């Protein structure tokens, strides 16, 4: 440090600084590209009908809040409040169902010895890559036969049965990191496999449970495909299905309300992002979970 820098190291530092400036500049350009659509959406939700069509700028010339109440009551006799309630109930039920069922299955895979364990584990990994679109037709026929269509049951019951293999996998990975000595100590103290689950695994798996809960919520909140299939009548619509009603009307009077409701629909996800960003980023690192 105290040694005076030679010209060559000074030049080296200079190019290093120049490089760093170029890198930062590039990152800021990419960031602008990434954030523009989001900021434009928020800005457009506050623009007046004359301004909202064909306007590149993010900041409205004149802030209009009217789009929000207009969008909220856009559909005759049915407010977005209903859709938000439906979405919230389904998302919360999914969170609880996923967390409970996947935790239990993961405990079996990660900690217990039983016959065909490896076989079932391989099957579970196989279902990770199974697209839901492949199963939608027969599942629909089945749930339709049960008269479950137009109820939330087809969306929730499968989650109670640990069909989200991603979360089972995530929790298995997590539980493998819990020291086995704790299990052994509990067993010596007379704990059965159920006791080990209750006293060791359940309390220590809290971080994995939180990650599962957050991703379950976001995925269910954003899910469109299954809700579109299983919730055909307007009173059971969720937020994404309600938003879809804006497609048909592309006139300039409905654009503002459409942006307003889009912003509202993303708020819960955005809130989770702000509160748990570190955890979300770690979550995709440990298991490759997609957003």
């Amino acid at each position, binding site marked *: 440090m105290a040694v005076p820098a030679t010209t060559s190291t000074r030049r080296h530092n200079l190019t290093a600084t120049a490089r760093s400036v170029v890198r930062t500049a590039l990152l800021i350009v990419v960031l602008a590209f990434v954030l523009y659509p989001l900021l434009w959406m928020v800005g457009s939700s506050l623009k007046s009908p004359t301004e909202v069509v064909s306007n590149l700028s993010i900041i409205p010339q004149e802030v209009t809040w009217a789009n929000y109440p207009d969008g909220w009551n856009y559909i005759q006799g049915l407010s977005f409040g209903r859709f938000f309630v439906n979405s919230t109930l389904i998302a919360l039920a999914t969170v609880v169902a996923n967390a409970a069922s996947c935790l239990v299955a993961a405990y079996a895979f990660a900690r217990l010895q039983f016959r065909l364990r490896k076989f079932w584990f391989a099957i579970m990994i196989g279902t990770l890559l199974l697209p839901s679109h*492949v199963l939608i037709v027969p599942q629909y026929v089945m749930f339709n036969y049960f008269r479950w269509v137009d109820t939330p049951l087809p969306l929730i019951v499968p989650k109670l049965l640990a069909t989200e293999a991603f979360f089972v996998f995530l929790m298995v990975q997590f539980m493998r990191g819990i020291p086995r000595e704790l299990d052994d100590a509990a067993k010596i103290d007379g704990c059965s496999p159920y006791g080990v689950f209750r006293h060791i695994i359940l309390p220590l798996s809290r971080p994995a449970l939180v990650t599962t809960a957050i991703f379950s919520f976001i995925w269910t909140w954003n899910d469109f495909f299954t809700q579109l299939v299983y919730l055909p009548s307007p009173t059971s619509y969720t937020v994404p299905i309600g938003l879809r009603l804006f497609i048909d009307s592309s006139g300039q009077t409905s654009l503002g309300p459409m942006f307003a409701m889009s912003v509202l629909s993303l708020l819960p996800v955005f809130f989770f992002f702000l509160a748990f960003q570190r955890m979300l980023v770690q979550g995709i690192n440990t298991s490759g979970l997609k957003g």
Partner: protein
Amino acid sequence: MAVSTAAAARHGDAVRAGPPPRRRFRVSQRRRDEGLAGYVFLSPWLIGLMAITAFPMLFSLYLSFTNYDVLSGFSAMEWVGLDNYRRMFTGDPAYWHAVRVTLTYALVAVPLKLAAALGVALLLNRERRGVGLFRSLFYLPSLLGGSVALALVWRAMFGGDGAFNDLLALFGITGASWVNDPKWALETLMVLAVWQFGAPMVIFLAGLKQVPTELYEAASVDGAGKLRQFWNVTLPMLSPVIFFNLVLETINGFQGFTSAFVISNGTGGPVYSTLLYTLHIYDQGFGEFRMGYAAALSWVFLIAIAVITVVFFSTGRFWVHYSDGDD
């Protein structure tokens, strides 16, 4: 305890011979208990596997040989043999459009998305300050991008009088009506997919952190420039992560639905240009109520995805480099 000590005191020899078999009995009992507990804990998943996954799969294989539609019910269902499959390959003009659109979408959007993810990860990896903030903000579209809201925004942004054309007008270019132009509609979907490069970027970034700096130092001593270091150190060391992202994103790419559905208003148009395979399944099954045909479409889709996965994993060993130390 008191009783057993008293018993031990009474029949000294018999008890001394006792413990080994009893312990063996207890161990095997414990193992049996654990085996039972294993299946108790596994049971919800196992029921789910049978009832929600395996049975519907087999059922849909059966349906694919029938003309079942939900409206007429099971009484009107007839066995039609290979008719659905024949119709798919020879009698359904939309089918080959769907195959072509899906392949184009996956083959173009996935590499671009991964290239963007890797490029930004490389930029971020060198940075010392602000990495956390940049990383989080780049990741945001991955959380929001799959929603109906963003698809609606895209539709508005790339419409004839949308913001994108305003931008082009600044440079004196008159843009097309992107989402309504069969030549460009799929491209707007691809831009939306690439925009969500954040999730693979986070995974790349974690992978880059694992590359030992000694390797770069050694390469640098050997006179390798930055480009050569990237080619001979970064890429091979990163290949397991690239492979992982490639498999995951390709499978996700094949499953795109929401953006195409919203932007084309469920039609897959204009002129089939955004008719992703999933959209065709939905349209045939839930629009036209041809459940048997939709089941056949699903099975071919499943086989295609399985083949692609197998191809990935069997070619992976030629280019994925696993270092000895970490898995």
